[in-house]
């Protein structure tokens, strides 16, 4: 089969398999094996298969397209550095001549073009008809848009999800039989005792995998939105998995509602797109990308005609003919640019909600109420990254202004979350906040034009954060508490977990030896930092640079704080320490696998250009960054330009992680400094950060209370006025019905009775024929037949004779 059919087929299968397992588990879940234990295996098998399929697709893709050498200008300094690193096996000499033309015509039409595969599997419906408006009819399709990014995402999601499924098999085992939930106390003082929900868990997981993959492979914005909501609902269901716990159900609702806020923005963005362009599809000649960055314009950002016309509708209404020249004139005047910005911002709003960016980041930490594998899969590796992914996917449409907004939102998020993570003591919350801040980092990087860097970090982060979460899960599994202060010294008890987690921490702190080798985080972070440097350099937004750098430091600090508090030192809670134990192998083997990925996912396969970075490079959207039209002095630097800053980026990153780790070691490792002192020293600051910057409280005051008040008022009105009205009308109705009743009794009934009586007497008359003699009936049938035949033939003769 031709590759362009094979790949969608493979990915489509990989996408649908979890759905199948979901269906199976929904139907037969509890009946599969003893209390549904098989459902776990079904789900695991499904996701394993789709992971294999995705990897197969990746292999096919590589085998078709290969991987180009990264084609960025090499400066001798980097040249030396590159030569010495394993990452890039390229030669300065070869790349030297390329500079000139590259800088000449910009990256727009660099021969990076691997055409993405796009198409439609199934059309859900077509709204509007051809030629009814100036738009093509809106086709809501199940389509696909596959480029290297998609395939990599598939592989990543597949692998991680598989690991996590295996892990969950063991982690959720107590759900197999009845569970006594010690966190729920019933009114009668006992703890809640409920049947296990093993199959339900895996059915949700499968549904989630299906939705996530669908979101990744989606070929148009509408489909993205659908699966966007699907992953939302999955996360809702899984956060509220222990829905008897008040905290869990509130957390689930919180996550759901907060996400709705974001999705509202997203819907606005979609409306802006649809209302002006009349299409949702990404790919294709009339797809969004092609409209915004037409190849004719060397893929530069161009406000599409549709938006221009939409903006200039008054003139058109006034009778100005929208000829192409006129439209160009309008475009020069900046018509429709606002729409583009709105579209970008709207879509980004969705991403803000989904990947917990600054105003809406509050849900993610609470989402940790869900089972740990869920936190690992959904709230660390995949779903929350979906926002970043969507920004990356939508990158071509985003104007510099939007990008700047994104960058700042990301920066703020990064910083806030990082600070909160320092003081959090709940092991999962620490990780949650670190997730938030890492997502902020990615957003920031995307916002400052570091497309590759951002997505690069998305991948590496997915691996080590999933690893970290699973480790924390195994810790919690071992000591049945989330509170780090009650742990400590677990290193000896659970070596596997401890050291895999150590690897995770190193990876996330971006540890590496500059110029030689590093863990995955190292590469992605210094790519981001480099971009931040170049951005700060080109357009003096230094704050972002500071945020990114500081963030890096804080990250490594709290990660090691976490590790030391959990594994190092002496046990603080004897009881817990006694009962702690290493998790079963099915739990720590995934850890090992993920650890391997966390270390090596960013490495280059020796002697080949094959590396994650170069892979993503293939998917980089065409088109150069243009200057903003609203903030005209704003230009997002090209990413390839950031390589001259690689040195200071690397240095900064290294310095940051060194500082962070040293601090953490000082505070929690060797305890030469006492955190308590600091806490006392900055009591106000501490409580401020400890209370998560009072976000929840502020929101409570700003939004929740007003809504409550409003609803109370509404209830009052309801009771006082509407009820009164209803009672009255009821009274009237009674009166009317009395009259009606009389009419009914006298006229209608009289009529009906008469008919009934006559029918009855007729029946009495006819019943004599009903002899009940079967054979008599047969006789009559035969007689009737003969008679009929005779009659008919006779009449026929008559007719013939008559004619």
């Amino acid at each position: 089969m031709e590759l362009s059919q094979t790949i969608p087929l493979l990915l489509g299968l990989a996408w649908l398999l979890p759905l199948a397992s979901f269906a199976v588990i929904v139907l037969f879940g509890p009946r599969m094996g003893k209390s549904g234990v098989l459902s776990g295996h079904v789900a695991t098998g499904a996701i394993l298969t789709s992971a294999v399929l995705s990897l197969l697709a990746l292999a096919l893709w590589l085998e078709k397209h290969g991987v180009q050498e990264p084609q960025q200008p090499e400066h001798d300094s980097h040249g030396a550095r590159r030569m010495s690193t394993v990452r890039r096996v390229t030669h300065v000499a070869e790349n030297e001549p390329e500079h000139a033309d590259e800088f000449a015509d910009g990256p727009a039409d660099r021969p990076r073009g691997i055409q993405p595969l796009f198409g439609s599997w199934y059309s859900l419906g077509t709204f509007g008809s051809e030629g009814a408006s100036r738009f093509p009819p809106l086709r809501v399709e199940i389509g696909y848009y596959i480029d290297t990014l998609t395939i990599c995402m598939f592989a990543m999601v597949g692998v991680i999800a598989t690991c996590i499924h295996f892990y969950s098999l063991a982690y959720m085992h107590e759900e197999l039989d009845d569970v006594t939930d010690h966190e729920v106390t019933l009114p009668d003082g006992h703890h809640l005792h409920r049947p296990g929900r093993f199959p339900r868990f895996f059915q949700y997981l499968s549904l989630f995998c299906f939705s996530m993959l669908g979101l990744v492979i989606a070929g148009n914005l509408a489909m993205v939105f659908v699966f966007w909501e699907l992953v939302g609902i999955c996360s809702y269901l899984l956060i509220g998995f222990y829905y008897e716990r008040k905290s869990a159900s509130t957390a689930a609702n919180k996550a759901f509602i907060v996400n709705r806020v974001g999705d509202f923005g997203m819907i606005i963005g979609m409306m802006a797109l649809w209302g002006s362009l009349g299409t949702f599809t990404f790919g294709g000649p009339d797809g969004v990308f092609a409209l915004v960055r037409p190849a004719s314009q060397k893929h530069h950002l161009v406000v599409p005609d549709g938006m221009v016309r939409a903006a200039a509708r008054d003139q058109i209404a006034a009778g100005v003919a929208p000829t192409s020249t006129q439209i160009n004139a309008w475009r020069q005047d900046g018509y429709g640019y606002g729409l583009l910005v709105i579209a970008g911002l709207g879509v980004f709003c969705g991403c803000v909600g989904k990947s917990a960016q600054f105003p809406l980041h509050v849900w993610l930490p609470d989402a940790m109420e869900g089972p740990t594998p869920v936190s690992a899969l959904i709230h660390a590796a995949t779903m929350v990254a979906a926002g970043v992914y969507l920004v990356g996917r939508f990158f071509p449409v985003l104007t510099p202004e939007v990008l700047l907004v994104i960058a700042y939102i990301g920066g703020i998020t990064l910083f806030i979350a990082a600070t909160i993570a320092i003081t959090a003591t709940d092991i999962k919350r620490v990780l949650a906040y670190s997730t938030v801040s890492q997502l902020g980092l990615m957003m920031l990087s995307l916002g400052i034009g570091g497309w590759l860097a951002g997505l690069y970090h998305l991948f590496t982060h997915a691996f080590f954060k999933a690893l970290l979460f699973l480790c924390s899960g195994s810790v919690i599994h071992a000591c049945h508490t989330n509170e780090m202060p009650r742990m400590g010294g677990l290193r000896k008890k659970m070596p596997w977990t401890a050291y895999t987690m150590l690897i995770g921490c190193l990876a996330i702190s971006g540890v590496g030896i500059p110029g030689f080798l590093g863990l995955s985080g190292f590469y992605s972070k210094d790519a981001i930092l480099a971009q931040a440097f170049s951005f700060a350099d080109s357009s003096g937004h230094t704050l972002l640079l500071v945020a990114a750098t500081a963030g890096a430091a804080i990250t490594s600090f709290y990660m090691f704080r976490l590790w030391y508090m959990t594994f190092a030192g002496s046990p603080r809670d004897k009881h817990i320490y006694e009962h702690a134990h290493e998790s079963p192998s099915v739990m720590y083997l995934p850890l090992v696998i993920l650890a391997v990925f966390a270390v090596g996912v960013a490495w280059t396969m020796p002697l080949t250009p094959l590396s994650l970075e170069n892979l993503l490079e293939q998917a980089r959207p065409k088109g150069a960054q243009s200057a903003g039209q609203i903030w005209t002095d704003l230009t997002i630097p090209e990413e390839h330009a950031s390589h001259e800053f690689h040195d200071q980026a690397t240095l900064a990153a290294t310095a940051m992680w060194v500082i962070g780790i040293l601090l953490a070691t000082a505070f929690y490792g060797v305890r030469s400094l006492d955190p308590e002192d600091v806490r006392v020293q900055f009591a106000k600051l501490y409580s401020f950060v400890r209370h998560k910057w009072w976000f929840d409280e502020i929101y409570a005051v700003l939004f929740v209370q007003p809504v409550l008040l409003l609803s109370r008022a509404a209830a009052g009105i309801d009771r006082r006025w509407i009820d009164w009205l209803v009672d009255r009308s009821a009274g009237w109705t009674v009166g009317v019905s009395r009259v009606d009743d009389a009419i009914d009794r006298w006229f209608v009934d009289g009529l009906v009775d008469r008919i009934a009586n006559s029918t009855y007497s007729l029946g009495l008359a006819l019943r004599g024929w009903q002899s009940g003699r079967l054979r008599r009936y047969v006789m009559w049938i035969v007689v009737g037949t003969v008679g009929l035949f005779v009659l008919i033939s006779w009449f026929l003769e008559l007719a013939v004779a008559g004619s």
Partner: protein
Amino acid sequence: MEPINWHTFFFLLFSLVACAFAVAVLISTNIVRMAFYLTLSLGATSGLFFLAGADFVGAMQLLIYVGGTLVLLIFGVMLTAQGPFISMKTAGGEWVLATIVGGALLALLLQTAFSVNDWHGPAAATPSHFGAREASSDPLTQPFTPATETASVRTASVTRGAKPAGEPSPWSEEAPRTATRLGMGLLGARVDLLEQHDDTLRHGMSGYLLPFEIVSVHLLVVLVGAAYLARAKRRARN
């Protein structure tokens, strides 16, 4: 002497058996024997089907009717086989009545059967059809024996030329594979109509997929219903 037309011979044989045992069913009073006679009658009828070239229907008749239905009936017979019910006399008056009415019906049917001239058999052919007639009647004069197919049928089928290949007698080489065609027909593909050169006839003929489905569902329902009734009765007993 002119050769025996074995088709006729076997036709007479089977039809006699069928009719005779049908009448036997009618006049016998012992219910078990009636069932037995019915078996023979149906068997003979399936023989007639084979003769008429409907081999699949014939086999079906044997399998389902004779095999299934009658076993079922005999079941009933035996379940209710108690002295008084084995043979229940019918009043003479009803006999008379039945005879009259049945006779009328029979007369009617016979009259209809012989009313159409073209139905008297291939021999009663108008000369215009002669070639075709010769051809398609040829196999009939062939002695009836398994898979006898002498040159005459060949030539016949050749001379027939335009005529669809579905026509020759059921025992010749080009015997219509009714099984396959019926199968395809039940699946909605009327492969036999590909040979139907007469558009007016091909027109409006379609597959039988829907009836097939309906019948299968109907069967299911019937089975469930029968099972239910059977169970209900047992509950009624105790």
